[in-house]
């Protein structure tokens, strides 16, 4: 559905040339939810803007649904943009217009729909996002989550095949974020719309992405299926973003209550498991087959899209042999472990 080839983009500020995007190549398949994560300043916002040519790349092609956006006229680009929906971090609703008029805007811009068609389309969209009663209210009386729903309704009204999401949940609280992500997932599954989203929150990728690309310094440093990249990151920078962040985060929180003693026979391991393994009695099996005692310091059992996974920070107390045996057991059960201390 989307093919990005040899994309580069540089900015000139104060005499210096900064390469924001450095030779990026990407493929997004139809119906996929594709996430792009990275730290602030990594280039992800610019990359997304290149997808609908809001930013013109210096070199490279952006081929959306067979059309190379970098090679068409201004007028043709406008027509192509009407087939790409975009949602934004700060919603970008028009305060002077009602919710109805905000959602209707893309159709009015197309100019070839009559009053009846517009009313039917808007009503349908408002129903999809659950805001039918708000049609005649103004954005100033809506909450953040509701505003983003309006943004989604507006983005989808021209029945686009592609939806771009520019940190759409970054300005929302966790519960609202979850409900918006649910809505996006529902839209992707029932309408088959391809979604490309950028975010700096790993939770977002975990919840809805099929594939993810990690961007750093203008380059894609890792790319693949969401749970592969999240559970078993290959690049050190990716690990830094994901796993080490988790274990550092855990260790930080644990440090308040726990004293690390060197050579005390205690080892701290970070266990990760995916799929069915998540529900196996891992710790119980280890406890029974070795002589180790263990304490759970921190844990998380969750899902990456529909795939269950878990991460546990465990303190194992026992001798070296027992630890070796425990590791063997974990390996046999398909548990990925990492000795943190």
């Amino acid at each position, binding site marked *: 559905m989307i093919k990005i080839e040899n994309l580069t983009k540089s900015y000139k500020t104060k005499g210096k040339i900064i390469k924001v995007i450095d030779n990026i190549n990407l493929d997004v398949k139809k119906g996929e939810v594709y996430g792009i994560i990275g730290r602030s300043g990594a280039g992800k916002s610019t990359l997304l803007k290149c997808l609908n040519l809001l930013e013109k790349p210096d070199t490279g092609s952006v081929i959306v649904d067979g059309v190379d956006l970098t090679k068409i006229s201004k007028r043709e680009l406008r027509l192509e*943009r009407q087939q790409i929906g975009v949602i934004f971090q700060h919603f970008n609703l*028009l305060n002077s217009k009602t919710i109805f008029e905000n959602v209707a805007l893309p159709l009015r*811009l197309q100019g070839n729909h009559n009053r009846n068609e517009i009313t039917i389309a808007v009503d349908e969209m408002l129903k999809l996002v659950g805001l039918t009663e708000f049609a005649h209210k103004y954005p100033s009386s809506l909450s953040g989550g509701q505003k983003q729903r309006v943004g989604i309704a507006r983005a989808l009204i021209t029945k686009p095949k592609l939806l771009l999401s520019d940190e759409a949940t970054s300005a929302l609280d966790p519960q609202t974020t979850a409900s918006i992500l649910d809505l996006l997932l529902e839209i992707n599954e029932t309408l088959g719309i391809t979604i490309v989203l950028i975010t700096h929150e790993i939770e977002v990728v975990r919840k809805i992405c099929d594939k993810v690309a990690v961007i750093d310094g203008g380059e894609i440093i890792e790319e693949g299926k969401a749970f592969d990249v999240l559970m078993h990151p290959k690049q050190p920078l990716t690990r830094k973003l994901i796993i080490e962040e988790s274990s550092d985060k855990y260790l930080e929180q644990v440090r308040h209550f726990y004293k690390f003693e060197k050579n005390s026979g205690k080892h701290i391991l970070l266990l990760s498991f995916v799929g069915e393994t998540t529900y196996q009695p891992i710790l119980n099996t280890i406890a029974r087959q070795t002589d180790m005692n263990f304490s759970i310091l921190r844990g998380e059992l969750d899902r990456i899209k529909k795939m269950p996974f878990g991460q546990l920070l465990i303190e194992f107390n026992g001798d070296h042999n027992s630890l070796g045996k425990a590791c063997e057991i974990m390996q046999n059960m398909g548990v990925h472990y990492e000795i943190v201390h």
Partner: protein
Amino acid sequence: MSLAIISDALNTLDWSEINQATLDTLFMLGFAVFFSTIIGIPVGLLLFLTNKDGVLQNKAVYSSLSFIVNVLRSIPFIILLIVMIPTTTFLVGTSLGAKGTIPPLVVGAFPFFARLVENALKEIDKGIFHMAESCGASTWQIIWHILLPEIMPNLVASITVTAIALVSYTAMAGAVGGGGLGDLAIRYGYQRFQTDVMLVTVVLMVIMVQVIQFLGDFLVKVIRKK
């Protein structure tokens, strides 16, 4: 002063002249506000759009337009009145009277109003432009469907400010025999020492300004109810 003295004084005034002066002022004000607005809005839009990062970014157009606007704003109105005599005659057939004052009033006011329009446009969130372009809107569509509706409260407030500024400009119309309340105040009050006339005309102008401000605030409130 007791009420009797005030009513005596009021009775001795020539109200027909004051009435005519009031009508003249309103006549000048009405046309000046109207033309300043319809010229100022496109000029303000152009200034905004051709500026750096604007949709129609054009350094040459922006700098020249900005320069012209700045120059016109710097010329004292009384000098503008005189300098424009040939142009005014060409446009409306005379450089005298209420009619002859309107072109200079418009030329004096529209640059000021255009800057207010430009400022109002600058207050629109940049994200709105990203959204508009992402929807495939053309520049005209952005102006008509998005920019003008979004700045409407600000626009009405700016027109109010401009109208009130124009009230004091019309006072100088007397210099070209323009008539109006200001002219009356100067001729009778200043030149003939008839303080009572001057007082009455000033009070009338104060009332005029109050009414304009009230109407403006009311309209902004109505538009902003959203």
